[in-house]
């Protein structure tokens, strides 16, 4: 080795010489090396801090924007709910008010009927019998024997007539009372009808009242949204996350449905599209099947938008009602056509599978086996099942528009929240890295000092002599670019002590 032969025949001495030389070089460039390390570290730390600040700022901006979007979305939802409540209330009032004249007429009729009945039942006193005057006249006759027999007979006749008439009057009176009772009994029905109508009215008013209370709550919520209160934000956040998870789950289920649908039509598509062409490693036929499913979903989305269930496309949503309905009819026609195509493809699939099975039989067992397989009874249930699935699945997939809308709206906030958290996390990590770099720099400097410990030790010995206190002070005055506050304070203490010692020495 070159170093071992620096002094020929003296490898140990050669090594010692090299080590001493290295130590001295390290000592002489110590200050520059320390400064270089400090500068490099400072540069890295400053960049890290800058990045960290930028991330925190981004997180804050993102948070603010998220809040705005969240409240805006909440406001839209509240508007929709409020609108729906008003529509319900309007329908209710319209329906009830339309019936009020009928009810009122009914009640009035019932009341007039009852009044009639009551007037009919009013009691008319029975007329006094006319013979009472005759009796009075007879009693005024002179009491003579001549008249006794005649009077007696008259009185007897009057008595009998009186009894007879009394009986008749009593009978008539009783009949009248029975009639009145019958009339009153007839009025009972009107009473009941009246009570029923009034209770019905009460219920309707109660319902209206409930709706009004609900609207009050909605309006209160809407006001909170408009004001952007913390409570509204908290409620919206919780609601949004739940909605996001639910819509995600539903969309995953719909994804499986789409997968089943894809498998149903992928094979027969090879009859319609070139089987030997590929795009990005995938068969054109398979891509065609996937495109058909995507088209079905798209048409389904448009249809749901046109009938006002979702609000993903403002162009469709703000169309005139008539045009929107025409659009809806066009969409459903296309969708049904695609459903028909899928059912046809499902049928073709079954035919192709059967043909393949026949071919295999033919290749394995010859014509006999093929004709036996053809003659065997086949159930049509799988084919009917596949055709039904082919027709129904696109219609079911159409409903994915609802969770999709929810997913898009809530996803914006959830993803935004995740990015904010990520920014904060990375910012914290960068700050930690900056602290680590600071400590690492210190450690490097210490390691450097260890490498050239011998000259440092010697210098320290020389400097620690009492008369060289000045130089200690001078050395201590050299500032380091990167020093912590503690280090600085300890140094200042040392400096004070050195000055004190110097003064004492003087």
């Amino acid at each position, binding site marked *: 080795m070159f170093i071992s032969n620096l002094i020929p025949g003296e490898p140990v001495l050669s090594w010692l010489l090299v080590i001493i030389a290295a130590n001295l070089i390290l000592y002489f460039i110590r200050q520059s090396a320390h400064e270089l390390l400090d500068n490099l570290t400072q540069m890295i730390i400053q960049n890290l801090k800058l990045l960290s600040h930028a991330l925190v700022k981004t997180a804050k901006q993102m948070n603010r924007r998220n809040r705005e979007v969240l409240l805006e979305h909440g406001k839209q939802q509240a508007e929709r709910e409020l609108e729906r409540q008003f529509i319900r209330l309007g329908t209710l009032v319209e329906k009830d008010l339309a019936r009020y004249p009928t009810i009122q007429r009914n009640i009035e009729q019932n009341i007039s009927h009852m009044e009639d009945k009551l007037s009919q039942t009013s009691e008319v006193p029975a007329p006094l019998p006319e013979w009472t005057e005759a009796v009075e006249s007879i009693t005024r006759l002179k009491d003579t024997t001549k008249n006794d027999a005649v009077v007696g007979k008259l009185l007897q006749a009057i008595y009998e007539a009186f009894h007879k008439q009394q009986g008749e009057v009593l009978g008539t009176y009783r009949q009248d009372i029975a009639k009145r009772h019958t009339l009153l009994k007839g009025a009972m029905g009107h009473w009941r009808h009246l009570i029923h109508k009034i209770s019905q009215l009460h219920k309707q008013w109660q319902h209206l009242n409930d709706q009004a209370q609900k609207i009050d709550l909605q309006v209160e919520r809407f006001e909170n949204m408009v004001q952007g209160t913390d409570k509204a934000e908290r409620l919206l956040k919780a609601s949004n996350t739940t909605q996001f998870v639910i819509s995600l789950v539903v969309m995953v289920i719909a994804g499986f449905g789409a997968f089943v649908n894809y498998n149903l039509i992928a094979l027969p598509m*090879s009859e319609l599209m070139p089987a*030997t062409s590929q795009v990005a490693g995938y068969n054109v036929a398979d891509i065609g099947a996937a495109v058909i499913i995507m088209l079905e979903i798209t048409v389904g989305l448009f249809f749901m938008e046109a009938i006002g269930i979702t609000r993903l496309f403002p162009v469709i949503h703000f169309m005139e009602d008539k045009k929107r309905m025409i659009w809806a009819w066009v969409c459903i026609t296309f969708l049904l056509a695609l459903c028909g195509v899928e059912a046809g493809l499902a049928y073709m699939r079954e035919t*192709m599978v059967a*043909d393949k099975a026949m071919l295999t039989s033919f290749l394995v067992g010859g014509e006999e086996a093929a004709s036996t397989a053809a003659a065997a009874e086949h159930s049509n249930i799988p084919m009917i099942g596949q055709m039904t699935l082919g027709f129904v699945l696109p219609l079911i997939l159409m409903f994915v528009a609802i969770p999709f809308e929810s997913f898009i709206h809530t996803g914006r906030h959830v993803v935004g929240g995740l990015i904010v958290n990520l920014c904060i996390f990375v910012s914290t990590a960068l700050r930690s890295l900056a602290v680590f770099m600071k400590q690492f720099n210190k450690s490097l400097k210490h390691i450097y000092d260890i490498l050239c410990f011998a000259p440092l030790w010697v210098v320290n010995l020389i400097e620690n002599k009492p008369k060289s206190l000045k130089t200690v002070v001078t050395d201590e005055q050299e500032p380091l670019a990167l020093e912590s506050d503690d280090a600085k304070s300890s140094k200042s203490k040392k400096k004070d002590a050195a000055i004190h010692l110097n003064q004492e020495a003087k």
Partner: protein
Amino acid sequence: MKQLLITLSIVFALTACTEHKPTTGLYLLLDTSGTYTKELKKAQQIINYYLAQLEPGDSFAVARIDSGSFSETDIIAKVTFDQRPSRANEQKRVFSATISQFIETVKSSAYTDISGGILLAKEYLNETGADKKFIMVFSDMQEELPKGYKRDFELSLPDYEVIALNVTKLRSDNQDPAQYMQRLKDWQQRIEQSGGKWRMINDLEREQSLAL
């Protein structure tokens, strides 16, 4: 205008992305010399197996090895399957029927010109433009040429895989197995020197070994 340009660019990009699906070209040579014709029933099963395996767009040809195999008249059946699976299935039925008829009526030949057959197979597979090219030789690999036939040329088989199927042992091989080993070794060397790959399948019952 901008949107139209973007749409057109996407359409062109997709069209440019459309590529040809890798196709397979398979050429099976059937040895019809001497007593080997008895083995042809096995060959029919193998042909039917590959008919079931091949897909639309693939090419398949079966030719006989006789005294002078470098002739189109030795091709028994050849087909490039239609892109529509139903039409391809129909072609497979016809192909299978043709092979069946040939095996029933085959007459043994006096000589075995394997090299000529391989050369014809190479020409056919080149014409089909198949991405993966396989030449299968259903024979005992004992080449016997009529007088005056020259077959000591360079085969040049890059991108080809030559598969020897059902290489039966001759009576002389039983007496001296080294002959059999040497025969196979010679063929392997010849194919590999021509740039092709060599494979031998004797156990025709194993589906894995038959896979292309």
